[in-house]
Protein backbone atom coordinates (compact mmCIF):
# COMPACT_ATOMS: atom_id res chain seq x y z
CA UNK A 1 0.00 0.00 0.00
CA UNK A 2 2.76 2.27 1.00
CA UNK A 3 4.79 1.54 -2.13
CA UNK A 4 1.72 2.16 -4.26
CA UNK A 5 1.15 5.50 -2.54
CA UNK A 6 4.85 6.37 -2.86
CA UNK A 7 4.83 5.45 -6.54
CA UNK A 8 1.78 7.56 -7.13
CA UNK A 9 3.24 10.47 -5.16
CA UNK A 10 6.60 10.32 -6.95
CA UNK A 11 5.09 9.95 -10.41
CA UNK A 12 2.72 12.83 -9.79
CA UNK A 13 5.67 14.83 -8.44
CA UNK A 14 7.66 14.06 -11.63
CA UNK A 15 4.68 14.94 -13.76
CA UNK A 16 4.19 18.18 -11.89
CA UNK A 17 7.87 19.02 -12.07
CA UNK A 18 8.09 18.32 -15.76
CA UNK A 19 4.89 20.30 -16.34
CA UNK A 20 6.09 23.30 -14.38
CA UNK A 21 9.53 23.11 -15.87
CA UNK A 22 8.07 23.16 -19.37
CA UNK A 23 5.90 26.04 -18.27
CA UNK A 24 8.90 27.77 -16.79
CA UNK A 25 10.95 27.00 -19.88
CA UNK A 26 8.31 28.34 -22.19
CA UNK A 27 7.98 31.34 -19.91
CA UNK A 28 11.73 31.79 -20.17
CA UNK A 29 11.44 31.62 -23.91
CA UNK A 30 8.76 34.26 -23.83
CA UNK A 31 10.85 36.36 -21.52
CA UNK A 32 13.84 36.26 -23.83
CA UNK A 33 11.62 37.00 -26.77
CA UNK A 34 10.08 39.88 -24.87
CA UNK A 35 13.53 41.09 -24.00
CA UNK A 36 14.49 41.08 -27.65
CA UNK A 37 11.36 43.06 -28.44
CA UNK A 38 11.94 45.56 -25.69
CA UNK A 39 15.71 45.80 -25.90
CA UNK A 40 16.07 48.42 -28.69
CA UNK A 41 14.40 50.92 -26.46
CA UNK A 42 16.66 53.84 -27.24
CA UNK A 43 16.22 57.48 -26.64
CA UNK A 44 14.05 58.70 -29.47
CA UNK A 45 15.70 61.53 -31.32
CA UNK A 46 12.96 63.59 -32.84
CA UNK A 47 14.94 64.92 -35.68
CA UNK A 48 13.41 65.59 -39.03
CA UNK A 49 13.62 67.67 -42.13
CA UNK A 50 11.59 70.46 -40.59
CA UNK A 51 14.29 71.09 -38.00
CA UNK A 52 16.77 71.96 -40.69
CA UNK A 53 16.10 75.55 -41.60
CA UNK A 54 14.90 75.70 -45.17
CA UNK A 55 15.73 78.57 -47.47
CA UNK A 56 13.22 78.20 -50.27
CA UNK A 57 11.76 81.73 -50.29
CA UNK A 58 13.57 84.80 -51.54
CA UNK A 59 12.56 88.47 -51.34
CA UNK A 60 14.10 90.82 -53.87
CA UNK A 61 14.27 94.56 -54.47
CA UNK A 62 15.10 95.80 -57.94
CA UNK A 63 15.82 99.17 -59.48
CA UNK A 64 16.38 99.88 -63.13
CA UNK A 65 14.91 101.29 -66.28
CA UNK A 66 11.81 100.66 -68.32
CA UNK A 67 11.73 101.66 -71.94
CA UNK A 68 8.06 102.42 -72.46
CA UNK A 69 7.13 102.58 -76.13
CA UNK A 70 6.37 106.21 -77.17
CA UNK A 71 6.88 107.40 -73.60
CA UNK A 72 10.66 107.27 -73.26
CA UNK A 73 12.95 105.53 -70.81
CA UNK A 74 12.03 105.91 -67.17
CA UNK A 75 13.24 104.61 -63.79
CA UNK A 76 11.53 101.51 -62.47
CA UNK A 77 11.33 100.03 -58.97
CA UNK A 78 10.28 96.44 -58.40
CA UNK A 79 9.60 94.16 -55.50
CA UNK A 80 9.65 90.40 -56.04
CA UNK A 81 9.03 87.21 -54.14
CA UNK A 82 10.54 83.93 -55.30
CA UNK A 83 9.67 80.44 -54.20
CA UNK A 84 12.25 77.88 -55.24
CA UNK A 85 10.35 74.67 -56.00
CA UNK A 86 13.43 72.60 -56.74
CA UNK A 87 16.98 73.20 -57.92
CA UNK A 88 15.72 74.03 -61.40
CA UNK A 89 12.33 75.75 -61.11
CA UNK A 90 11.09 78.76 -59.17
CA UNK A 91 7.92 80.83 -59.20
CA UNK A 92 7.93 84.58 -58.81
CA UNK A 93 5.44 87.27 -57.85
CA UNK A 94 6.39 90.74 -59.04
CA UNK A 95 5.16 94.24 -58.26
CA UNK A 96 6.65 97.16 -60.15
CA UNK A 97 6.24 100.90 -60.36
CA UNK A 98 7.38 103.33 -63.03
CA UNK A 99 6.04 106.24 -65.05
CA UNK A 100 5.65 107.39 -68.63
CA UNK A 101 7.51 110.43 -69.88
CA UNK A 102 6.54 112.85 -72.65
CA UNK A 103 5.83 111.49 -76.09
CA UNK A 104 7.68 112.96 -79.09
CA UNK A 105 4.37 114.38 -80.24
CA UNK A 106 3.97 116.33 -76.99
CA UNK A 107 7.56 117.58 -77.13
CA UNK A 108 7.32 118.80 -80.74
CA UNK A 109 3.88 120.39 -80.70
CA UNK A 110 4.19 121.79 -77.14
CA UNK A 111 0.41 121.34 -77.07
CA UNK A 112 -1.91 119.96 -74.47
CA UNK A 113 -0.50 116.89 -72.72
CA UNK A 114 -1.97 113.55 -73.82
CA UNK A 115 -2.17 112.21 -70.31
CA UNK A 116 -2.69 113.64 -66.85
CA UNK A 117 0.03 113.20 -64.21
CA UNK A 118 -1.97 110.39 -62.60
CA UNK A 119 -2.34 108.58 -65.89
CA UNK A 120 1.41 108.69 -66.42
CA UNK A 121 1.96 106.58 -63.31
CA UNK A 122 2.62 102.98 -64.24
CA UNK A 123 1.95 100.08 -61.89
CA UNK A 124 2.25 96.47 -62.77
CA UNK A 125 2.19 93.03 -61.24
CA UNK A 126 2.88 89.59 -62.65
CA UNK A 127 3.09 85.92 -61.83
CA UNK A 128 6.08 84.17 -63.36
CA UNK A 129 7.85 80.87 -63.70
CA UNK A 130 11.63 80.76 -63.84
CA UNK A 131 14.02 78.06 -64.89
CA UNK A 132 17.66 77.93 -63.78
CA UNK A 133 19.16 77.14 -67.16
CA UNK A 134 22.86 77.49 -66.36
CA UNK A 135 23.78 76.98 -62.73
CA UNK A 136 27.49 77.48 -62.26
CA UNK A 137 30.27 79.26 -60.50
CA UNK A 138 32.13 82.50 -60.92
CA UNK A 139 35.83 82.43 -60.04
CA UNK A 140 36.80 85.94 -59.02
CA UNK A 141 40.25 84.82 -57.89
CA UNK A 142 41.90 81.47 -57.14
CA UNK A 143 40.50 81.54 -53.64
CA UNK A 144 37.11 83.21 -54.00
CA UNK A 145 34.30 81.43 -55.77
CA UNK A 146 30.66 82.39 -55.99
CA UNK A 147 27.69 80.32 -57.06
CA UNK A 148 25.74 81.78 -59.93
CA UNK A 149 22.83 80.89 -62.18
CA UNK A 150 21.57 82.17 -65.46
CA UNK A 151 17.81 81.76 -65.58
CA UNK A 152 14.98 82.18 -68.02
CA UNK A 153 11.73 83.67 -66.82
CA UNK A 154 8.26 84.26 -68.28
CA UNK A 155 4.92 85.24 -66.89
CA UNK A 156 1.64 87.04 -67.18
CA UNK A 157 0.23 89.97 -65.33
CA UNK A 158 -1.29 93.38 -65.56
CA UNK A 159 0.04 96.83 -66.31
CA UNK A 160 -1.96 99.86 -65.27
CA UNK A 161 -1.00 102.81 -67.42
CA UNK A 162 -2.80 105.71 -69.12
CA UNK A 163 -5.96 105.11 -67.13
CA UNK A 164 -6.45 101.51 -68.19
CA UNK A 165 -5.46 98.03 -67.18
CA UNK A 166 -3.47 96.17 -69.80
CA UNK A 167 -3.04 92.44 -69.82
CA UNK A 168 0.69 91.87 -70.00
CA UNK A 169 2.85 89.00 -71.12
CA UNK A 170 6.49 89.15 -70.14
CA UNK A 171 9.59 87.07 -70.82
CA UNK A 172 13.29 87.47 -70.31
CA UNK A 173 16.36 86.24 -68.54
CA UNK A 174 18.41 86.98 -65.50
CA UNK A 175 21.68 86.31 -63.77
CA UNK A 176 21.81 85.43 -60.08
CA UNK A 177 25.08 85.92 -58.23
CA UNK A 178 25.10 84.46 -54.74
CA UNK A 179 27.27 86.48 -52.35
CA UNK A 180 26.46 83.95 -49.61
CA UNK A 181 23.88 81.21 -49.15
CA UNK A 182 21.35 83.88 -48.16
CA UNK A 183 22.19 86.97 -50.16
CA UNK A 184 22.01 87.29 -53.91
CA UNK A 185 22.74 90.00 -56.44
CA UNK A 186 20.58 89.81 -59.52
CA UNK A 187 20.24 91.43 -62.86
CA UNK A 188 17.25 90.88 -65.10
CA UNK A 189 16.35 91.79 -68.63
CA UNK A 190 12.72 91.40 -69.62
CA UNK A 191 10.29 92.33 -72.34
CA UNK A 192 6.76 93.36 -71.35
CA UNK A 193 4.25 92.98 -74.16
CA UNK A 194 0.87 94.71 -73.91
CA UNK A 195 -1.65 96.55 -76.07
CA UNK A 196 -1.76 100.35 -76.05
CA UNK A 197 -4.58 102.53 -77.40
CA UNK A 198 -3.44 105.99 -76.33
CA UNK A 199 -3.19 107.23 -79.94
CA UNK A 200 -6.63 105.98 -80.96
CA UNK A 201 -5.55 102.70 -82.52
CA UNK A 202 -4.81 99.56 -80.60
CA UNK A 203 -1.22 98.46 -81.10
CA UNK A 204 0.99 95.84 -79.51
CA UNK A 205 3.92 97.38 -77.68
CA UNK A 206 7.22 95.85 -76.59
CA UNK A 207 8.56 97.47 -73.46
CA UNK A 208 12.05 96.48 -72.41
CA UNK A 209 13.04 96.45 -68.79
CA UNK A 210 16.53 96.25 -67.34
CA UNK A 211 16.93 95.98 -63.59
CA UNK A 212 19.55 95.22 -60.95
CA UNK A 213 18.57 94.03 -57.50
CA UNK A 214 19.42 92.27 -54.28
CA UNK A 215 17.67 89.28 -52.78
CA UNK A 216 17.54 87.56 -49.43
CA UNK A 217 16.71 83.89 -48.93
CA UNK A 218 14.62 82.94 -45.89
Amino acid sequence: MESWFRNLFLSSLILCCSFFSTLALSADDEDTQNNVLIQPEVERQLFNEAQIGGNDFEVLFFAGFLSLEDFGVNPLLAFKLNYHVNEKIFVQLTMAQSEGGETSYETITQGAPLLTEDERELQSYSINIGYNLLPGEAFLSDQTTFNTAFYLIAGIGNTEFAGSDRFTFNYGGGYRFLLSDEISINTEFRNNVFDMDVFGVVKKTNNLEFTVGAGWFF
Partner: protein
Amino acid sequence: MKAFYLLLSVIVLLFKTQAAIAQTEQPVPLTITDPFIELHTGPGSAYPVFYVVDRGSKIVVLKRKTSWYKIQAENGKAGWASKLQMQQTLLPSGQTLKFVEQDQNAFVQRQWEVGASTGELEKAQTLSIYAGYAFTRNISSEFTLGHSVGNVSSSDLYKVNLLMQPFPEWNYSPFFTLGLGSIQVKPNATLIEPADKNNAVSQIGIGFKTYLTRRFILRVEFNEYVIFSANNDKDENEDISEWKVGFAIFF
Protein backbone atom coordinates in the same frame (compact mmCIF):
# COMPACT_ATOMS: atom_id res chain seq x y z
CA MET B 1 -1.53 99.12 -54.08
CA LYS B 2 -4.01 96.65 -52.58
CA ALA B 3 -2.15 93.86 -54.27
CA PHE B 4 1.09 95.19 -52.82
CA TYR B 5 -0.24 95.00 -49.27
CA LEU B 6 -1.57 91.52 -49.91
CA LEU B 7 1.81 90.42 -51.21
CA LEU B 8 3.49 91.98 -48.21
CA SER B 9 1.18 90.21 -45.76
CA VAL B 10 1.78 86.92 -47.57
CA ILE B 11 5.52 87.42 -47.11
CA VAL B 12 5.12 88.20 -43.42
CA LEU B 13 2.98 85.09 -42.99
CA LEU B 14 5.52 82.96 -44.85
CA PHE B 15 8.35 84.38 -42.81
CA LYS B 16 6.56 83.65 -39.56
CA THR B 17 5.91 80.04 -40.52
CA GLN B 18 9.47 79.59 -41.71
CA ALA B 19 10.80 81.07 -38.47
CA ALA B 20 8.56 78.78 -36.45
CA ILE B 21 9.74 75.74 -38.42
CA ALA B 22 13.44 76.50 -38.14
CA GLN B 23 14.02 75.79 -34.50
CA THR B 24 17.21 76.94 -32.91
CA GLU B 25 18.41 73.59 -31.64
CA GLN B 26 21.89 72.20 -31.45
CA PRO B 27 22.68 70.40 -34.69
CA VAL B 28 22.41 66.62 -34.31
CA PRO B 29 25.53 64.76 -35.46
CA LEU B 30 24.80 62.11 -38.07
CA THR B 31 26.84 59.10 -39.12
CA ILE B 32 27.31 58.22 -42.77
CA THR B 33 26.46 54.65 -43.78
CA ASP B 34 26.74 55.00 -47.53
CA PRO B 35 30.23 54.18 -48.84
CA PHE B 36 30.62 57.95 -49.17
CA ILE B 37 28.69 61.21 -49.51
CA GLU B 38 29.57 63.66 -52.23
CA LEU B 39 29.76 67.33 -51.33
CA HIS B 40 28.80 69.70 -54.13
CA THR B 41 29.79 73.35 -54.20
CA GLY B 42 26.15 74.42 -54.57
CA PRO B 43 22.61 73.13 -54.01
CA GLY B 44 22.16 71.34 -57.33
CA SER B 45 23.48 68.35 -59.23
CA ALA B 46 25.09 70.69 -61.77
CA TYR B 47 27.51 72.11 -59.20
CA PRO B 48 30.77 70.12 -59.10
CA VAL B 49 31.73 67.64 -56.38
CA PHE B 50 34.68 69.00 -54.44
CA TYR B 51 34.92 66.70 -51.44
CA VAL B 52 33.88 63.22 -50.35
CA VAL B 53 33.02 62.17 -46.78
CA ASP B 54 33.63 58.47 -46.04
CA ARG B 55 31.42 55.90 -44.40
CA GLY B 56 31.47 56.11 -40.61
CA SER B 57 32.33 59.81 -40.53
CA LYS B 58 30.26 62.22 -38.50
CA ILE B 59 28.56 65.20 -40.10
CA VAL B 60 26.17 67.96 -39.03
CA VAL B 61 23.39 69.45 -41.15
CA LEU B 62 23.53 73.24 -41.40
CA LYS B 63 20.67 74.21 -43.71
CA ARG B 64 18.47 73.18 -46.58
CA LYS B 65 17.67 74.60 -50.00
CA THR B 66 14.99 72.76 -51.98
CA SER B 67 16.10 69.11 -51.67
CA TRP B 68 19.76 69.81 -50.97
CA TYR B 69 21.38 69.89 -47.55
CA LYS B 70 24.41 71.86 -46.54
CA ILE B 71 26.46 69.60 -44.30
CA GLN B 72 29.71 70.01 -42.45
CA ALA B 73 32.25 67.25 -41.95
CA GLU B 74 34.32 66.90 -38.79
CA ASN B 75 37.29 68.58 -40.42
CA GLY B 76 35.22 71.67 -41.16
CA LYS B 77 34.62 71.08 -44.88
CA ALA B 78 31.09 72.23 -45.73
CA GLY B 79 29.18 71.50 -48.92
CA TRP B 80 25.87 70.46 -50.36
CA ALA B 81 24.60 66.87 -50.38
CA SER B 82 21.48 65.55 -52.07
CA LYS B 83 18.53 64.27 -50.11
CA LEU B 84 18.97 60.86 -51.72
CA GLN B 85 22.34 60.42 -50.03
CA MET B 86 21.20 61.99 -46.78
CA GLN B 87 18.50 59.36 -46.41
CA GLN B 88 21.21 56.80 -45.66
CA THR B 89 22.71 58.65 -42.69
CA LEU B 90 22.29 57.46 -39.11
CA LEU B 91 21.28 59.23 -35.94
CA PRO B 92 23.44 58.82 -32.78
CA SER B 93 20.91 56.22 -31.61
CA GLY B 94 21.58 54.05 -34.64
CA GLN B 95 18.28 54.83 -36.31
CA THR B 96 18.07 55.91 -39.91
CA LEU B 97 17.35 59.59 -40.31
CA LYS B 98 13.69 59.99 -41.12
CA PHE B 99 12.79 62.72 -43.53
CA VAL B 100 9.38 64.02 -42.63
CA GLU B 101 8.76 65.32 -46.07
CA GLN B 102 6.07 67.45 -47.54
CA ASP B 103 4.10 64.83 -49.37
CA GLN B 104 0.57 63.91 -50.33
CA ASN B 105 -0.20 63.30 -46.67
CA ALA B 106 1.06 66.72 -45.65
CA PHE B 107 -1.13 68.13 -48.38
CA VAL B 108 -4.20 66.42 -46.94
CA GLN B 109 -3.38 67.83 -43.50
CA ARG B 110 -2.39 71.32 -44.63
CA GLN B 111 -3.73 74.39 -42.84
CA TRP B 112 -2.77 77.29 -45.06
CA GLU B 113 -2.78 77.55 -48.79
CA VAL B 114 -1.65 80.53 -50.87
CA GLY B 115 -1.91 80.54 -54.62
CA ALA B 116 -2.28 82.35 -57.88
CA SER B 117 -4.25 81.44 -60.96
CA THR B 118 -5.06 82.66 -64.41
CA GLY B 119 -7.85 82.08 -66.89
CA GLU B 120 -10.80 83.76 -68.49
CA LEU B 121 -13.71 85.63 -66.96
CA GLU B 122 -16.31 86.15 -69.67
CA LYS B 123 -13.62 86.38 -72.41
CA ALA B 124 -11.49 88.78 -70.36
CA GLN B 125 -8.11 87.54 -69.21
CA THR B 126 -8.11 87.18 -65.49
CA LEU B 127 -5.47 86.83 -62.80
CA SER B 128 -6.20 86.11 -59.19
CA ILE B 129 -4.46 85.41 -55.93
CA TYR B 130 -6.02 83.68 -52.98
CA ALA B 131 -5.32 82.58 -49.44
CA GLY B 132 -7.17 79.72 -47.80
CA TYR B 133 -7.42 78.27 -44.33
CA ALA B 134 -8.54 74.69 -43.73
CA PHE B 135 -10.85 74.18 -40.75
CA THR B 136 -10.96 70.42 -41.27
CA ARG B 137 -9.61 68.05 -43.89
CA ASN B 138 -12.74 68.66 -45.94
CA ILE B 139 -13.78 72.23 -45.33
CA SER B 140 -11.80 75.37 -45.87
CA SER B 141 -12.46 79.04 -46.37
CA GLU B 142 -10.76 81.20 -48.96
CA PHE B 143 -10.32 84.85 -49.75
CA THR B 144 -9.77 85.66 -53.42
CA LEU B 145 -8.67 88.85 -55.09
CA GLY B 146 -9.13 88.83 -58.85
CA HIS B 147 -8.35 91.20 -61.60
CA SER B 148 -9.49 90.80 -65.19
CA VAL B 149 -8.68 92.87 -68.21
CA GLY B 150 -11.01 92.93 -71.21
CA ASN B 151 -11.22 94.96 -74.39
CA VAL B 152 -13.68 97.56 -73.12
CA SER B 153 -13.37 97.30 -69.38
CA SER B 154 -11.44 95.80 -66.53
CA SER B 155 -12.81 94.52 -63.27
CA ASP B 156 -11.73 93.86 -59.70
CA LEU B 157 -13.29 91.03 -57.82
CA TYR B 158 -13.20 90.32 -54.08
CA LYS B 159 -14.67 87.10 -52.87
CA VAL B 160 -14.93 85.02 -49.73
CA ASN B 161 -15.90 81.42 -50.27
CA LEU B 162 -16.39 78.14 -48.53
CA LEU B 163 -14.69 75.17 -50.12
CA MET B 164 -15.83 71.58 -49.68
CA GLN B 165 -13.36 68.84 -50.58
CA PRO B 166 -15.07 65.49 -50.05
CA PHE B 167 -12.10 63.26 -50.94
CA PRO B 168 -8.94 65.08 -49.83
CA GLU B 169 -6.77 61.95 -50.23
CA TRP B 170 -7.54 61.42 -53.92
CA ASN B 171 -4.81 62.19 -56.43
CA TYR B 172 -7.19 64.46 -58.28
CA SER B 173 -9.30 65.71 -55.44
CA PRO B 174 -12.54 67.40 -56.52
CA PHE B 175 -13.94 70.40 -54.68
CA PHE B 176 -17.05 72.56 -54.68
CA THR B 177 -17.19 76.20 -53.73
CA LEU B 178 -19.84 78.65 -52.71
CA GLY B 179 -18.96 82.29 -52.34
CA LEU B 180 -20.04 85.90 -51.93
CA GLY B 181 -18.26 89.04 -52.90
CA SER B 182 -18.21 92.20 -54.86
CA ILE B 183 -17.19 93.12 -58.39
CA GLN B 184 -16.15 96.54 -59.58
CA VAL B 185 -16.27 97.09 -63.33
CA LYS B 186 -14.14 99.93 -64.66
CA PRO B 187 -14.64 100.95 -68.31
CA ASN B 188 -11.43 101.78 -70.19
CA ALA B 189 -10.39 105.43 -70.12
CA THR B 190 -10.76 105.83 -73.88
CA LEU B 191 -14.49 105.13 -73.68
CA ILE B 192 -16.89 108.03 -73.35
CA GLU B 193 -18.72 106.76 -70.31
CA PRO B 194 -16.14 106.13 -67.62
CA ALA B 195 -18.49 105.44 -64.72
CA ASP B 196 -17.48 102.60 -62.42
CA LYS B 197 -20.06 100.01 -61.48
CA ASN B 198 -19.94 98.25 -58.16
CA ASN B 199 -22.12 95.20 -57.58
CA ALA B 200 -22.46 92.32 -55.18
CA VAL B 201 -21.87 88.86 -56.61
CA SER B 202 -22.56 85.30 -55.59
CA GLN B 203 -20.57 82.42 -56.90
CA ILE B 204 -20.82 78.68 -57.26
CA GLY B 205 -17.92 76.61 -58.50
CA ILE B 206 -16.43 73.23 -59.12
CA GLY B 207 -12.82 72.14 -59.62
CA PHE B 208 -10.02 69.85 -58.58
CA LYS B 209 -6.66 70.07 -56.87
CA THR B 210 -3.75 67.77 -57.39
CA TYR B 211 -0.54 67.43 -55.43
CA LEU B 212 2.55 68.08 -57.58
CA THR B 213 5.71 68.11 -55.53
CA ARG B 214 7.01 69.34 -52.17
CA ARG B 215 4.62 72.13 -51.13
CA PHE B 216 3.15 72.58 -54.55
CA ILE B 217 -0.35 71.91 -55.85
CA LEU B 218 -2.10 72.47 -59.15
CA ARG B 219 -5.66 73.72 -59.13
CA VAL B 220 -8.23 73.90 -61.91
CA GLU B 221 -11.67 75.41 -61.41
CA PHE B 222 -14.81 76.60 -63.12
CA ASN B 223 -17.01 79.26 -61.53
CA GLU B 224 -20.43 80.62 -62.29
CA TYR B 225 -21.19 84.14 -60.99
CA VAL B 226 -24.44 85.98 -60.58
CA ILE B 227 -23.92 89.75 -60.56
CA PHE B 228 -26.74 91.46 -58.71
CA SER B 229 -27.01 94.29 -61.19
CA ALA B 230 -30.81 94.43 -61.43
CA ASN B 231 -32.13 97.90 -60.68
CA ASN B 232 -34.91 100.26 -61.72
CA ASP B 233 -33.74 100.37 -65.33
CA LYS B 234 -32.87 96.73 -65.68
CA ASP B 235 -34.89 93.69 -64.74
CA GLU B 236 -32.36 90.91 -64.82
CA ASN B 237 -29.17 90.02 -63.03
CA GLU B 238 -26.13 89.13 -65.09
CA ASP B 239 -24.63 85.66 -65.23
CA ILE B 240 -20.97 85.28 -66.04
CA SER B 241 -18.68 82.30 -66.04
CA GLU B 242 -14.99 81.88 -65.34
CA TRP B 243 -12.38 79.15 -65.66
CA LYS B 244 -8.97 79.25 -64.05
CA VAL B 245 -5.78 77.22 -63.77
CA GLY B 246 -3.35 77.95 -61.01
CA PHE B 247 -0.64 76.91 -58.63
CA ALA B 248 -0.62 77.06 -54.87
CA ILE B 249 1.76 76.36 -52.06
CA PHE B 250 0.60 74.98 -48.74
CA PHE B 251 2.08 74.94 -45.27
